[in-house]
């Protein structure tokens, strides 16, 4: 189904909003509850490559829309990740593999936005290594813990709209 990626964006959005609310609760500690990378895993197993690319771009732009990050950096990074994942689906065949991928992708995407935001920031940050490590740690943990419920929602949406199980070739 051609529009499955768009429906999947709508089905994933409540999770992104939930993450924003969690970020709201963490605001006093300057940490962001980041799950955008994790949301990519399940769709990349089943969607065709071009659909996964559009889905990843939408996720990236949704994250960037209300934050001072240079336009398109997170979106294009996620698109590259989506191309990689949809070309190497053998890594996503098992649940442990998916969990590893979720943690890794979420950490990579988190690192991308942190560095991009640092580049766009009007002041230089000193001694931010601890904060970056903490942010990456949270991204890794949240990415791993959040994968199963997010993937369940996304799989249910894809089943409902007749997306076929993961093909061998994209």
């Amino acid at each position, binding site marked *: 189904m051609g529009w499955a990626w768009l429906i999947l964006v709508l089905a994933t959005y409540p999770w992104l909003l939930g993450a924003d609310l969690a970020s709201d609760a963490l605001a006093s500690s*300057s*940490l962001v509850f980041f799950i955008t990378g994790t949301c990519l895993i399940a769709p990349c197993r089943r969607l065709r490559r071009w659909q996964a690319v559009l889905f990843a771009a939408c996720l990236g732009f949704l994250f960037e829309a209300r934050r001072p990050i240079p336009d398109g950096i997170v979106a294009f990074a996620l*698109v590259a990740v989506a191309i990689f994942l949809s070309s190497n689906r053998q890594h996503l065949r098992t649940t442990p593999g998916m969990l590893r991928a979720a943690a890794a992708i979420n950490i990579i995407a988190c690192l991308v936005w942190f560095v991009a935001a640092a580049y766009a920031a009007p002041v230089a940050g000193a001694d931010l290594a601890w904060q970056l490590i903490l942010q990456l740690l949270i991204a890794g943990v949240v990415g791993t813990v959040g994968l199963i419920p997010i993937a369940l929602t996304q799989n249910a949406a894809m089943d409902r709209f007749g997306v076929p199980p993961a093909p061998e070739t994209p």
Partner: protein
Amino acid sequence: MDQNRQGARASYVALAIFFAVWVLLPSAVRRLNREAFAEFQAPALHLVGKSRDLATFWEKKSRSTEEMAAAGRDLARINAALEIKLNALEDVRRENIRLREITRYNVPVEYMSVVARVATRDSSSWWQRIVIRKGRNDGIRPGAPVVFGNTVVGRVTAVHLTTSEVDLVTSPGFRCTAYLEGDDQNHIVLVNGVAANSLGTAKARVSVIPRDYSMPAGQPARVFTTGMGGVFPSRLMLGYLDGGTYATQVGNFKESLLIPSRDLYNLQEVSVLVPLHQNPGEALMQGDQFQ
């Protein structure tokens, strides 16, 4: 398998081309794209804010009669105290009018106040922001100061149709000039947010403090806006100097940290002071690439 690899390679090449095109595109296109995704999220943010209000309403409605009676009694006492204050203020007002008539001073009515509820808060090392539930439809413009009472909360950085993003005083993007309490010569100091690098309270930096400045004894020095630059009205409170001042590397000036006078992450409502006429700062904001 080879077909898969070739397809992946072609996709990476296409991505590189798209990225190059994206970089070369006029910034208006990128801004339009950002605006579209921000507007997509606006209804959900409104819903979240309103749900919070509704939860607060039902939480208050579920209070017992005894609690309400006790609260009413406390309010009556506060009302009585405020009435005395009101009378004192009325005296001050009359005095003020009399003095104005003497000096023929025209009150500058430069700002329109728009009260807005806070929808969400979002902060990281690189931004400290709140999203408010008022936007372009309510007359809010980028660059407008955001206050709570006489305390500066921050400045509007991006305006959408029904929501706006506010950079808090502690955000790295925030800059303004200020006066220090206890400085009789009214030297101008610079206040700017710093990148948050700890789990503690976010702070801003006060720089260009004169070497001969000494803080008032026994109390933290307050920091006020100067009113210069046309963004913030004068004599609004930015916060307090944190502890002592320390010399900069060059040694000509001193620096200190600023603690906001309110807990910026517990605000429910703020006022946006929208200038009635566009000021130079606002014009500069409109030219910003990253909002």
